[in-house]
């Protein structure tokens, strides 16, 4: 038993022996070696599940468009504040839903309406309580009734002021204010940029973007290529053996993850 204790102590002593940490260069070299490992090996059923999920997503989006159609068209049907809209009937709901459903599948006009009116629609449940004349919403009807009751309470001239804004509007993307450069060195892309000197920046974020540039904020998680721990660096590299054309921007992120500055688009091949 005593021998066991001594042996344990000997093992623990080995486990507590001081070691020199890996040098920064060694850390970097090993990281490069590790990240050069071939693609993640996933079970073979993953692509099938992903495909099935994509199909379900498409079906879901299509269904959502059908149901959301009346809501998203609401501003177009608004009446002036002085002219309350007549209370809708079930027939009205039905006809509205039908026509909008067909509109939503017809292409660009309906989709643009969706994007512009969606934030307002999220406030709809609060609207009826401000106007006693609004008939209660039939619970069994999806989407349509809410839209139809809105014109009676929301003046067409100032729809935004009648609805308390609790949904955060999309962040405005600033104009590019500094240059991002990229060169290929073997399998790596090396990015460089001038140092950000403003006091409101916290870190840089490298983002792969579509040809139109940074489309929104925050970006999709999958598009974030790198995040730096601070603002001290002015260069970074990325292992990317493929030579396909890719577009990148570097953004400066401030406190509370605020988008502070955006670079020009750099194109890699």
């Amino acid at each position, binding site marked *: 038993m005593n021998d066991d204790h001594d042996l344990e102590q000997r093992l623990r002593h080995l486990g507590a022996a001081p070691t020199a940490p890996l040098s920064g260069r060694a850390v970097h070299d090993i990281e490069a070696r590790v990240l050069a490992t071939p693609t993640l*090996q996933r079970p073979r059923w993953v692509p099938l599940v992903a495909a099935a999920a994509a199909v379900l997503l498409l079906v879901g989006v299509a269904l959502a468009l059908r149901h959301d159609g009346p809501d998203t068209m609401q501003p177009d049907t608004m009446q002036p504040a002085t002219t309350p809209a007549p209370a809708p009937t079930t027939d009205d709901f039905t006809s509205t839903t039908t026509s909008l459903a067909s509109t939503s599948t017809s292409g660009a006009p309906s989709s643009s309406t969706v994007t512009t009116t969606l934030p307002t629609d999220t406030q709809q449940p609060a609207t009826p309580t401000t106007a006693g004349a609004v008939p209660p919403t039939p619970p069994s009807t999806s989407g349509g009734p809410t839209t139809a009751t809105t014109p009676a309470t929301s003046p067409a001239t100032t729809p935004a002021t009648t609805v308390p804004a609790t949904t955060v509007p999309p962040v405005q993307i600033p104009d590019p204010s*500094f240059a991002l450069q990229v060169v290929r060195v073997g399998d790596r892309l090396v990015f460089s940029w001038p140092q950000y000197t403003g006091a409101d920046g916290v870190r840089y974020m490298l983002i792969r973007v579509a040809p139109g540039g940074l489309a929104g904020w925050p970006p999709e998680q999958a598009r974030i290529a790198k995040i730096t721990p601070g603002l001290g660096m002015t260069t970074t590299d990325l292992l990317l053996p493929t030579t396909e054309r890719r577009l990148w921007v570097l953004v400066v992120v401030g406190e509370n993850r605020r988008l502070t500055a955006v670079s020009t688009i750099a194109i890699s091949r």
Partner: protein
Amino acid sequence: MSSAAAIPQRAARRHSADANLRVMEMYGEVDEHRLVDLARTDRAAFAEMYRRHVQEVHAFARRRTGSAHEAEDVTAATFERALRGLHQYRHTPSGLRAWLFRIATNEIIDQARRRERLRSARGQRALHVLHADSTGDADADHRDSAGAFGGVSGDPQLIAALDRLPDRYNTVLSLRFIAGLEPADVATHMGITAGNCAVLTHRALAALRKQLNEGGNP
């Protein structure tokens, strides 16, 4: 960046969208659980995971192998294995660290086995010749455990005896005493109960003592 000075003022006027931005997690701030989930599909997240754990994995490998070069190899191989096997990782209370130590231990065992295979009779003869020229130098590149390369005071006899143990004994002792994991964590990562782990540890210590005695060391 000359134009950068004007940027803060413009940014200050911009509407804050904190609610939306909270959706986005910075890798540098995310907890381990979420980071692992992200790292399953995102190399950048895996790189962050690597940076968080590389030093402790390396320290463990350095102590367990007694060799700086081998420790680097083990460290790299551990993270390569982790990258390939991350989809199989299941969150446990002991966390990612224990999982990485387990992988590192497996890698150390594999490397020791490969080394043994290379030590054919011919190789042994070559080693003897080298030993005759410079006593102990043949092992110096493998076991620089005298502390000259990184501070490990080392216990080459103990390390060699561990390498000769059966895999399960080797694993339980490495994880329990060298990595310093709790018995429950060792049991979890070895897929055994805490009771079995205690028995296994006891038997492993006995086997280790036997190895040391056979090797002429106390």
